[in-house]
């Protein structure tokens, strides 16, 4: 990233944000697998994980923020905006923290991100719907969060490796 100009930075961020939005859209088209609302693959997280490693903490955070705002404006509701914001911000912050530890690979970072995304959404859901009942979704969403987080982390790790092989060309 040393010799990259401002323009190439803007372009790169744009590509990442667009990719995250597209993956969000793709994910919206996939129906829920089971009767558990909020259960998702977390495809978007691939972009966030890769951005975290390739572009850095701040970029990953803001790319995710922009993605959430735009996707909610295009396809979502006011309700879904709050859900996404809570999940997205919490998971991104946790991933940044874990990455700073320097002890975990993208897989561990992404697994923690997957869970905290679900935790954030459940907290908001409990506050907004004013019911404790939703906490019953937490154990299920926790486990699915780990599983999808690990898978996303593996994919993210591969993408990151490939990108850094061609570091000079792209970045």
């Amino acid at each position, binding site marked *: 990233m040393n010799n990259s100009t401002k323009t190439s930075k803007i372009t790169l961020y744009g590509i990442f944000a667009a990719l995250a939005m597209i993956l969000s859209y793709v994910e919206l088209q996939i129906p829920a697998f089971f*009767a558990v609302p909020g259960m998702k693959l977390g495809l978007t997280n691939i972009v966030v994980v890769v951005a975290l490693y390739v572009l850095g903490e701040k970029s990953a955070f803001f790319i995710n923020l922009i993605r959430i705002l735009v996707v909610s404006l295009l396809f979502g509701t006011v309700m879904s905006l709050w859900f996404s914001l809570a999940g997205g911000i919490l998971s991104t912050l946790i991933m940044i923290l*874990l990455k700073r530890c320097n*002890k*975990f*690979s993208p*897989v*561990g970072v992404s*697994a*923690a991100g997957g*869970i905290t995304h679900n*935790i954030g959404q*459940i*907290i908001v859901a*409990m506050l907004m719907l004013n*019911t*404790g*009942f939703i*906490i*019953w979704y*937490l*154990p299920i969403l*926790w*486990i699915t969060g*780990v599983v999808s987080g*690990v898978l996303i*982390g*593996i994919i993210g*790790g591969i993408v990151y490796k490939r990108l850094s092989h061609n570091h000079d060309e792209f970045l």
Partner: protein
Amino acid sequence: MIKRYFTKNDILLIAALLLLSGALMLVLLLSQKHGSTVVISVDGKDVKSFSLYEDTRFVIDGYHGGSNVLVIENGEAYLESASCPDKLCVNMGKISKVGQSIICLPNKVVIEIRGDSSEEEYDAVVG
């Protein structure tokens, strides 16, 4: 093969996270309260409710002419028989705790256990 993607720390982290979810499940299960009412809804609308402490037998008119036979016995509710082809709802067994439910998708029937309305709030949220 595994080492290509995981480090030892990752595996420890993931194991810890899974253990935590198990612990959470356990806490939730132990703090579960015995329900007091059985609420039946068909196609999203509440149609009838019973006390969980009175033994009853009731035939639910499901969606599109389906039917399920609900039995309440010894503080537990279950479906004795159903018109649906897969009988998943019958196999879901007996329910008695707040929040538990039996769902019959073909007949759009949902049977849910609720507590006293004043007890809806949780004493503490662990998570």
